[in-house]
């Protein structure tokens, strides 16, 4: 029990969540409206949703030792598609728009996945290319057009504002997605295989895992979530144009890294990425309240990312030193594996996450 508690306290998610709580508490103590007003509470829950979805998708891709830089462009395309659907097909059900945009994002992710997994080309380059290509398509398609709130039905826009038990609907959608993917990665065999592939792609291949297929699926998930994020953007802000989602890709990677997802794969959780995204967006909103000019937001975000990576390395080194000490202290028993080393070994594959 104490062991579980200790592990919980040391887990990265709890640490990041604590940082998030501190930011919220400090901001609220200066301006109670940050949490205790209707708008403040809603913004707190609603603003990070888009980044959470994209960061979670990004995290799954990063866990397989790949990266998806095209998500910002996919969000832009999906948000514009969403608006076009309402304009071109009046009366289309909202749920169908959600489905179409997610499927569209999944197709774009599929292209990334096929090129990366089967082209034997690093995904960094491929998704850098598709980032430009998709953005260009958005510009060609949308031109200087802008989708306005008046183009979209009220039933859709109200999704962006209305809530259930003070929790906005969009936040609930986001929460369900994160929990479902978290369970998938943590409990399902397929989910564990992402970690195996990210830890050592060659070993995973030799072991008989369907490496390419898994990577393809990871990109499809990332694309579909970016598609969903595009719809959320349209619902929340009631507007979109060809520049929607610009620069989101690096924010997403940053959020995942802050949340403890190792950039070289094999470790981290989607919960961490989601909390990292919440922390990033909440800091952005809290800075003006603590009278730091919002110009400094990015500097703070950057310092956070660098700090998170340094912290990760320090923890990894400590873990390794402890494992060395344990190995030297009591040589491994052949019949019965030492529970301490087994637990620690598990910890090293999943970082401080488990």
């Amino acid at each position, binding site marked *: 029990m104490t062991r579980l508690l200790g592990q919980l306290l040391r887990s990265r998610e709890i640490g990041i969540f604590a940082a998030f709580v501190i930011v919220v508490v400090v901001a609220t103590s200066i301006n109670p409206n940050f949490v205790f007003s209707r708008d403040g509470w809603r913004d707190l829950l609603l603003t990070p949703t888009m980044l959470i979805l994209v960061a979670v998708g990004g995290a799954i891709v990063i866990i397989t030792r790949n*990266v998806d*830089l095209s998500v910002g462009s996919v969000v832009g395309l999906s948000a514009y598609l969403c608006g076009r659907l309402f304009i071109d097909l009046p009366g289309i059900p909202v749920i169908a728009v959600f489905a179409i945009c997610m499927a569209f994002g999944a197709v774009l992710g599929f292209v990334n996945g096929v*090129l990366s997994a089967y*082209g*034997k*080309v*690093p995904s*960094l*380059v*491929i998704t*850098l*290319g*598709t*980032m*430009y*290509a*998709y*953005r*260009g*398509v958005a*510009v*060609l398609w949308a*031109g200087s057009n802008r989708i306005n709130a008046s183009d979209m039905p009220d039933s859709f826009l109200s999704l962006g504002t209305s809530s259930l038990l003070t929790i906005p609907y969009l936040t609930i959608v986001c929460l369900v997605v994160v929990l479902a993917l978290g369970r998938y990665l943590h409990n399902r065999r397929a989910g564990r295989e992402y970690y195996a592939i990210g830890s050592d792609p060659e070993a995973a291949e030799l072991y008989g895992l369907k490496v390419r297929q898994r990577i393809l699926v990871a990109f499809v998930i990332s694309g579909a979530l970016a598609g969903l994020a595009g719809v959320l953007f349209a619902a929340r802000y009631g507007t979109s144009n*060809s520049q929607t989602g*610009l*620069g989101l890709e*690096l924010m997403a*990677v*940053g959020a995942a*890294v802050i949340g403890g997802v190792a*950039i*070289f794969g094999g470790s981290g959780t989607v919960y961490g990425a989601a909390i990292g995204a919440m922390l990033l967006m909440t800091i952005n909103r809290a800075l003006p309240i603590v009278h730091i*000019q919002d*110009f*400094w*937001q*990015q*500097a*703070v*975000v*950057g*310092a*956070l*990312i*660098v700090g*998170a*990576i*340094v912290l990760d*390395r320090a923890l990894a080194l400590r873990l390794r030193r402890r494992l060395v000490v344990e190995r030297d202290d009591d040589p491994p028993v052949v019949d019965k594996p030492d529970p301490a080393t087994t637990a620690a070994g598990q910890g090293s594959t999943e970082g401080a996450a488990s």
Partner: protein
Amino acid sequence: MTTLRARTSGDDSLLPSYGRPGWRRLATSSEAVMVAVLLAVVVVAALAVPHFASTTTLGFLLLDATPVLMIALPLTLVIITGEIDLSIASVIGLGSVLFGILIRAGVPLALAIAVCVLAGVLAGAFNGFFVAVVGLPSLAVTIGTLALFRGLAVGLLGTTAITSFPAEWQRAAQQMLGSTGIPAVILLVVVLVGVFAVLLHFTGFGRGLYAIGLNKEAAAFSGVRVNWSKFVTFLMTGAVSAMAGVFWTLRYASARGDNATGLELAIIAAVLLGGVSIFGGKGSIAGAVTGVLLISVLQSALRLDGVNSDAISVVTGTLLILSVLAPSVARWMRSKRRVPPAPA
């Protein structure tokens, strides 16, 4: 191993490029292909796009390409060691803002430039410290410093811009060499290209960078100072990025925190398009320069042809993907066509 087997089967198309005779090596190198593509695009653009073949177009094309061209050089070195630097465009912004503030405070031009380059060196040292000394992944570190340096730049100046530069400075930055349509600043770029080409291709330090990119451990055991080399490449990237920031400020007579936002991926795309491998160990200065020029020419030609300049990114992105996929596809097709060589 491949070399041996291919040689015994008498099939030299399977040889790695360095195993072929000199002229064939030159003609089939990815640089040669890129230069051919570049020339073809220039010829087609000159024939098909009105006003493309003019000194004005050439001048603006080269002026626009200058910052990208400058930074592409040290960045090539970084990528050849298998690392990456995403903070380059943010260092442009930081250099630009710092330059503006110094000039506004009455600091002489030469000193202001020196301070900016020094700031760039410090920014590079910051990256280099975490990557080479601490040993953190450069992709993650420089995503962090991308935000950090940009944040410093924007934070120092807020949303304001400094535009009170003497008009003759801006004229000097855009000065053409006589009536050739070649900007004078290209001389500086040519010097930089020469310096980096010699450094990469004709010094032990440069050869060491390839060794690091191919196999870090082997390089270390053969006496290459791996960490020091990496650190230096980041220093140089920071310094040149800050120089590009000064040029940017002078050319547009505007120092803003958000100058060159998002340019990092464009520069990286150009370098990779030029055949520099993202895995490290492969690439050349000539290739990187060709990559930058190819994108600049395409953008310029399409813009003159009336294509929305943002839509041109479709072409940039597709080109990048094709350029990295081409070797894989070629290998795949060869393996389909040929009977696999008998095991030696």
